[in-house]
């Protein structure tokens, strides 16, 4: 998927100083702070999403006319789901010393994705995303990795929900 798995890197993310900081910097900082508050410390999970990926997601939110106040919440939801998928990305081998953590982290982040999406009152998004999340797992189980990209699906779902609203 779109994030890089670096198990021991900190969640802190470089953003420009607040004066003159871009809108994206603020959305990203807010999203990561939200996630830092949500992730239980016992998990020791550190997220380190690529800046380019986050910018791409924020551009998609803008294209779909998402109100600025909602963007950091949606970005946090997106980071949780993409990170969960990333943790479980192949290869997964029994000899991998990180296998246990990767399985647990992926399961935990997916559960947190559900809980946090509900907490943000984004239940329609959770429901509309559910068939696609399932299809990603089916594609992976069938060895068709890379068949479904998350961001285009996420963007389409946001567009559909907006049209249906």
């Amino acid at each position, binding site marked *: 998927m779109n994030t890089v798995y670096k198990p021991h890197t900190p969640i802190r993310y470089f953003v420009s100083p607040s004066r003159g900081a871009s809108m994206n910097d603020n959305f990203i900082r807010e999203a990561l702070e939200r996630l830092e508050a949500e992730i*239980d410390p*016992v*998990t*020791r999970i550190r997220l380190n999403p690529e800046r380019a990926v986050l910018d791409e997601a924020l551009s998609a939110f803008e294209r779909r006319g998402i109100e600025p106040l909602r963007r950091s919440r949606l970005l946090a939801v997106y980071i949780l789901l993409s990170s969960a998928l990333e943790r*479980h990305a*192949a*290869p*997964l*081998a*029994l000899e991998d010393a990180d*296998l*246990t953590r990767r*399985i*647990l982290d*992926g*399961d*935990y982040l*997916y*559960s*947190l994705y*559900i*809980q946090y999406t*509900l907490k943000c009152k984004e*239940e329609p998004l*959770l*429901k*509309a995303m*559910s*068939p696609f*999340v*399932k*299809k*990603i*797992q*089916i594609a*992976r*189980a*069938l*060895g068709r990795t890379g068949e479904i990209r998350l961001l285009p699906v996420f963007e389409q779902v946001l567009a559909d929900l907006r049209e249906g609203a």
Partner: protein
Amino acid sequence: MELHKTLGIDLRRVEREMKRIVKYDNDVPPNSELERSLLQTIEAGGKRLRPMLVIVGSRFGPRADDNRIVQLAAAAEFIHTASLIHDDLIDRSPLRRGEPSLHTLIGPAKAVYVGNYMSARVVELLSQADEQAGGGRESFTAVATAELCLGEYEQLEHAYDYSLSLDDYLLKSKHKTAHLMAVSLEFGARAAGADEDLCRSLYAFGEHLGLSFQIRDDLLDFTASEQQLGKPAGSDLLGGQVTLPVLYALEDPALAAEIRAVGPHTRPEDIRPLLDAIRASGALRRAEEFCRAELELARRIALSLGGHPAHADLLSLADYFGGRKY
């Protein structure tokens, strides 16, 4: 008598529903390895406790006979089964109930995705249901298994940690085992339209029941045979799990020294005398008393719900959990 018969639950209906959830998914190619793996996992069976808890919970609401309840019962077992598939990988366990575990058959990555599919399919099913039929936000919360993961993290954190406190042990056990049982009862009650106070009481009942279940599991590591357990006796101790009998045994200085010597490289044959010493120490009796006390608390909640005919089912559950031999 078997529990499902005592409770008047047709488990075959639940198992048919589990298979139907797979077969009626047009996104799963027929006869694919994925479909075969899912059906094989379902057919491998299990105690099916969680579906029974969902159904018993539903009997406290006005819509207990709704067909939807059977689907939710099957969904609860999907969530549990998915967690077992991942647990086997985490424990690198080649066997499940004496048969090759799924990852042994299809490889670790595909096994992870089979488990993920089961969780994702449940979220999809709940998304298709309306609020009244179990599609409300509480249902999604019920299937989110962050607590289970926290229990696993806590277990990893405290492997071979002989300074573990009783509170840490109880927290880990609530996360890892009791929560899903409690939530299954609550989930069924909510879907059948039971009121909020009742749902909370059922959660509390399920939590005590679940804790007793975990302690019973802890005890079985010392008392059951390899054949009953599907793994050698003493596997928990050898794997660094500080269970309730071990916590009590650590209070004896002589035993504590021997227990503290158990580490990741200890061999099964090395702990046999220690297992016997723990069995003879009174630690098992104290853990048994704790287990009984939890069941007693569960029974008190069941009796407080005496106005509902289904409270008798809660008492049957408590009796079954108290007498479980493996």
